[in-house]
């Protein structure tokens, strides 16, 4: 518990605070006047009185730190203001979140299961065809970033073989079969890299464990090799793999940003890029803040899981902080 508190105070809160300040300031730093931006070009000729009144209404006459506190208060009550399109920003976010969660979920499931299975198969079948396949898969995915892999999958599976749609999304709740078809390629592009990293570590870790004495003992007492692996070798091999899984979660989060554009997937990444291109600053603020928040919280949860797995971290924590 003390560890959780310390992490909250020394990392989560400072990072979120700095992030919120940066995000708040970033919009203030943009050349151009917020009042002019708010009225738009159509009412170009506003007289000085109206201008002053608008500045006051928008809170721009107050000192900047007060403006920040007001903005922060709005954010904490989930009031992000309106987008340039007239829609409330929260509505845009609510529409985009399910798509992103779906994609990230599929990538995580695909990446973790495929990675574990491939890693175990490669270790068991060392030097055999499956091992070579796993090595090839790892080499491809580590050499090539997810969005390039995504483009390649699009060309091969969607254009040449015409098996999957090129873009778009169908919500899982409406038509599960069609939804999965749309999810397959982006899921593979994102999950493939995760699977590659996890399979590499699983293979190595399992092979290391197989050299331990207690595995020889298990063999000697006549267990089948399946039982040896499933009952004795697998569990201790998983500790480094869990570490990698945690790191991969973060990479999936930033991966979705780009992958969504490759597959024109209507998630948060797409919303953010559209907002940047349209200079829709309220949406940029809200989306980046949300993404940073998720990122930091996921990292915190991952760290807490390690603590559960390995109590040494709890004690070593203060030494590491130095």
């Amino acid at each position, binding site marked *: 518990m003390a560890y959780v508190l310390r992490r909250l105070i020394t*990392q989560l809160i*400072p*990072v979120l605070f*700095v*992030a919120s300040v*940066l*995000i708040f300031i*970033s*919009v203030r*730093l*943009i*050349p151009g006047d917020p009042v002019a931006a708010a009225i738009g070009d159509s009412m170009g000729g506003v007289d000085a009185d109206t201008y002053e009144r608008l500045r006051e209404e928008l809170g721009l006459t107050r000192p900047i730190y007060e403006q920040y506190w007001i903005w922060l208060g709005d954010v904490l009550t989930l009031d992000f203001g309106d987008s340039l399109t007239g829609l409330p920003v929260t509505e845009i976010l609510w529409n985009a979140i399910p798509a992103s969660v779906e994609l990230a979920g599929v990538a995580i499931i695909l990446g973790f299961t495929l990675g574990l299975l491939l890693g175990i198969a490669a270790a068991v079948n060392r030097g055999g065809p499956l091992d070579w396949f796993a090595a090839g898969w790892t080499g491809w995915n*580590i*050499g*090539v*970033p997810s*969005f*390039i892999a995504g*483009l*390649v999958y*699009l*060309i091969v599976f*969607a*254009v*040449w073989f015409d098996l999957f749609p*090129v873009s778009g999304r169908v919500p899982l709740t409406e038509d599960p079969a069609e939804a999965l078809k749309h999810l397959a390629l982006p899921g593979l592009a994102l999950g493939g890299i995760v699977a590659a990293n996890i399979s590499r570590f699983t293979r190595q870790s399992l092979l290391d464990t197989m050299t331990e004495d207690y595995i020889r003992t298990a063999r000697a007492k006549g267990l089948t090799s399946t039982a040896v692996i499933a009952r004795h070798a697998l569990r201790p091999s998983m500790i480094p793999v869990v570490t990698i899984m945690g790191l991969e979660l*973060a990479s999936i*989060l*930033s991966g979705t*940003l*780009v992958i969504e*554009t*490759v597959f024109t997937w209507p998630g948060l990444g797409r919303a*953010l*890029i559209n907002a*940047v*291109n349209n200079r829709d*600053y309220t949406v*940029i603020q809200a989306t*980046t803040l949300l*993404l*940073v928040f998720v*990122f*930091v919280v996921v*990292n915190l949860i991952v760290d807490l899981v390690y603590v559960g797995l390995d109590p040494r971290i709890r004690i070593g924590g203060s030494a590491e902080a130095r």
Partner: protein
Amino acid sequence: MSSAAPAGQVETPQLGDVERFHFLRFAWSELRAIMREPRGALAVSVLVLLLFFAFIFPLLDPTDPNQPGDGPKNGDISWDNPMGTDHLSRDLLARNSIGLGRTIKHGFVAVLVGWVIGIVIGYTAGWRGGRTDTLIMRGVDVLLAFPGIIFAILLITILGSGIFSVAVAIAFFNIPGSARLARAGVLRERERDYVLAGRCLGLSGARILFRHVAPNTFGAFTVQVPLAIVASVLIMAALNFLGLGAELPDPTLGAIMQEGRPFMRDAPHFVIGPVVILALMLTSLNFLSDVLTERLDPVRRRRV
């Protein structure tokens, strides 16, 4: 080649010249060692070919990458256009070549600037120690806790989209890693006897740090720099693909992919070109970094 030197310049040996000579010889012997490894040789050859394609080829091929040609739009691979043409019937071979050159140039400069800043920050933190160290490293930690691409997007929001903003974002992206590495190196070297000897001789702190300590921290950088270039080129291509580094009509690899994305079904060659080039480049850099790691790591080095 000495005849090419300006007439008035007399070649007098200086202290700096001697060190520079050693560095070149060191680099040359490293390169030869890398070339002895099959993977290293492959990586270096591919990289040399790519450099040729990016910087020498445009001099030989007069096609203007931004000039719409007379050929068909989204034209297939042909003798005139070996990589096909794009949606404005511009020659994709020329565009990819220029695009690769811009990607390498900007990526390289951005990584260099980022690393120099990061290393100076890291040296300062490690050398000064105490409160300066704590303060700087806290800042670095916060920077690390940010997902890199979101930070880049925020920066680009402030600076406006364009290749310069992308380069600034890449430079920032490289600061935390290099700062940590530099600090770790200085912390390791700081307590060595030669530092004490330098102090006894009355050398200034900056001189000891930059003349004597810094060279001993460079080893760790050689492995990390290729990886940093991989990550930076990747982020850069991604940002350009997202349309954030757009300075049309000048191409970058990412921008060509973005332009080709809508025509994927009818003209797959449009996207395949930059994808293959980028994949080749990133894979070779990864190989190179692997070979360097193995050379520096005596446990993993097979031949001594």
